[in-house]
């Protein structure tokens, strides 16, 4: 699944470490999410969306 996490994070001027700390996940998880190597659980996807005050589908792009 593709996502706009890196783009959104950079636009907000937040470092990976800061985002990881806020979401209580490892920095590697943020890196893997941004690279598209890892798809988050629905819980983490909600946490990310709430953190940026956005909808999940605005961050994570589902393509068939």
């Amino acid at each position: 699944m593709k996502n706009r996490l890196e783009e959104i994070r950079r636009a907000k001027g937040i470092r990976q470490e800061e985002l990881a700390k806020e979401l209580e996940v490892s920095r590697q998880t943020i890196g893997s999410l941004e690279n598209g190597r890892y798809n988050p659980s629905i819980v983490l996807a909600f946490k990310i969306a709430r953190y940026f005050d956005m909808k999940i589908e605005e961050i994570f792009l589902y393509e068939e």
Partner: protein
Amino acid sequence: MRGNKLIYTAAMIAGIILICVSLIFFGDEESKILSGISIGIGAGLFGMSVAMLSINAIDNKKPELKKQNEIELSDERNIMIRDKAKARASDITKPFFILLLMLTILAEAPLWLTCVAIGVFLLREIIEFFLIFKYNKKM
């Protein structure tokens, strides 16, 4: 945390006692296997306890490091990686275990040893099926 400290201290003392007992009482040739097992378990208990007590001590001195370790431990990606690695390692070693089982037969090892090996193998299979059944119901 305090409870853990007590458990690890008790395990460390148990490990030392096991090593001492095996060195003092199982010195002769007849009890060589028993001595080896005692030393092995004792050393394992001692090593694990010392490691856990040291980790606890460091965690208490550096709360931020403790928090980071907790995050690393509960991180969903890390959990998935650990579970996947364990499952793969188990799958990869399974044929080797079967080979080892056959070796005990070919090498004419004592029957009890072959039976124990078969028992462990069957136990592993039963646990696997039980867990599949359990998770099927749970998820």
